[in-house]
């Protein structure tokens, strides 16, 4: 099987869709000659030309809105919003337009739009380029939310997102772009709403997203040395959510930790915790633990940033609390 980085996997899905389908095109800031601020779209201008690899002004409302209009008019646009922090600039178009056209029209219109964005902390970009905002979108009926953590998943899920007839906000994590892994020879679309169990375990379930999947896997290894068997579940798509896999895992392990990079308060973990207590209450041997960033904007100074965002150690500590081994 070939190996791809997370970055190459994203590019591979887009390029293959554009080769197969004239309706697919990409637009965003700095995505043409520069190849994107994270290098994701490198080489795509040469292959597809400026009509389908559209460099845009710094104009998030218009880019996202134009994506919506093009989608309604029959295209399958992929819009890159350079940093997820800048999604704030396009919120009206996303929440009021993209999410609601199909509904408000009584099902007449479709919005097959994919918004790719990336970000996250861990490299001292400062407070306006580092916030994880995925939970905001899960709160909006009408937007699918995808957050893959591996090259294989990012490729397969992006493919499916592009071909979904509804708007998808697709989160990539900045620190994962160089992660390299084997991927299948041919692109296989992956169904949205299916979790991946990265590691099986008996004692504690860790439901983790994005970068925290990898932190959770490190924590699981360390926990193993302490005799704690950890199962790591990555929902991969936050909406739709694979409740069955999460509940199935918790019923087996009787303990649950949720872990994400975004702040704990009102984070996606709160939803998982509510789900687990409701559907697996009698199975729980410990309170559901939540791991996430401390409630502060992401600071600049590396020592402060390190302090605010969660790491494997935080996951491990939470795992130990659930088994009474603090």
């Amino acid at each position, binding site marked *: 099987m070939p190996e791809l980085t997370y970055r190459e996997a994203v590019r591979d899905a887009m390029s293959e869709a554009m080769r197969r389908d004239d309706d697919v095109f990409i637009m965003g800031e700095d995505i043409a000659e520069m190849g994107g601020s994270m290098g994701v779209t490198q080489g795509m201008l040469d292959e597809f030309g400026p009509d389908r690899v559209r460099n845009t002004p710094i104009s998030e409302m218009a880019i996202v809105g134009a994506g919506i209009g093009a989608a309604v008019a029959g295209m399958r*646009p992929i819009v890159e919003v350079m940093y997820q922090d800048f999604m704030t600039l396009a919120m009206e178009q996303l929440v009021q*337009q993209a999410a609601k056209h199909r509904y408000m029209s009584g099902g007449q219109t479709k919005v097959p739009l994919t918004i790719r964005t990336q970000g996250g902390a861990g490299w001292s970009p400062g407070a306006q380029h580092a916030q994880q905002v995925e939970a905001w979108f899960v709160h909006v009926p009408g937007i699918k939310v995808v957050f893959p953590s591996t090259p294989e998943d990012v490729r397969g899920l992006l493919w499916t997102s592009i071909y979904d007839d509804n708007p998808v906000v697709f989160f990539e994590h900045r620190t994962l772009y160089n992660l390299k892994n084997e991927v299948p020879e041919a692109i296989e679309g992956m169904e949205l709403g299916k979790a991946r169990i990265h590691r099986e375990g008996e004692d504690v379930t860790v439901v983790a997203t994005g970068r925290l999947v990898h932190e959770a896997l490190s924590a699981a290894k360390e926990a193993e040395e302490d005799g704690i068997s950890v199962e790591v579940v990555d929902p991969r798509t936050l909406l739709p959510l694979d409740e069955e896999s999460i509940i199935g895992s918790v019923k087996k392990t009787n303990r649950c930790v949720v872990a994400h990079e975004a702040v704990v308060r009102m984070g996606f973990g709160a939803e998982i915790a509510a789900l687990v207590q409701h559907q697996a209450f009698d199975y729980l041997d410990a309170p559901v633990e939540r791991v996430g960033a401390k409630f502060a904007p992401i600071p600049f100074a590396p020592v402060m940033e390190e302090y605010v965002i969660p790491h494997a150690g935080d996951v491990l500590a939470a795992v130990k609390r659930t088994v009474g081994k603090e």
Partner: protein
Amino acid sequence: MATLEEKGQTVSAERLKDFLREMLLIRRFEEKVEERFRAGELPGFLHVAIGQEAVAVGVCRALEEGDVIASTHRAHGHTIAKGTHPNEVMAELYGKVEGCSHGYGGSMHLYDFERGNLGANAVVGGGLPGIVGAGLAFKMRGEPRVAVAFFGDGATNIGTFHEALNLAQLWTVPAIFVCEHNRYAESTPSTQHLPIEDMTKRAEAFGMVSMTVDGQDVEAVFDTAKKALRHARDGKGPVFIVADCVRLSGHYVGDPQVYRPKEEINELRKNRDPIELLRTRLELSDEEFGEMDGEATRIAEDSVEFAKKGTDPKPEDALKNVYA
């Protein structure tokens, strides 16, 4: 024999009569809406386009098959002018399944995808970027279609307006931006929300061709829209149209308009009613006008009957069309 219109001079009298019928239909429809709202039959809140009929009709009659529009919170006129039957519009206002948005949208969210109405928007300026995108899709596929956004002077102060016009011009998108300049952003007069008198300057700042037209003169609107559409369809880029018009009603049905001098409304009703202006111009006999008016009134009344007989959605239908 070539008609005057074909010679590029003016619109034929027959065609103008046709425009008048449409404007009358919108007027009588809107009056019916006010009446039924006051009778307590219509939920939500409503904005009627009384006084602005000539813009809706002049622009929509200039469109060709395949052209699309995005409307505003004041959407009934645009929607009817774009070809949706008044029955379906009224049924939507009554929240019925037979409505043009099947009860999911309401007055401010009228859609008719089949007839090229991509949707009315209750967010001021919210529909403009989408129109740029629709136009972009037409351009990328090489289709000779144009996308048209309606909005008011109030919308020219919001970010989407500036971002949308900038992008449309940058990419020479086949789009027309029709600003219905009725001089009120809800209750706020343009003297309090526009720092400039001539709004075409806003579009010209992006290098966009702009045109100003008397929005009470349906023929002028039609001619201007035709010119703008040709420009856009020929691949020369978008056009900004300022249609100077008057809102003869309040912002919403029931608006006491405390912010507006009574004399102003009376004066506008007397001198700037687009229907009266056209009627005078066409020198219609009372009989002919009465006949046209009677027909419009009948269609408006029928739409209420149709809507009242419509089907209520099942409460649980609220969860249909939800995919995430």
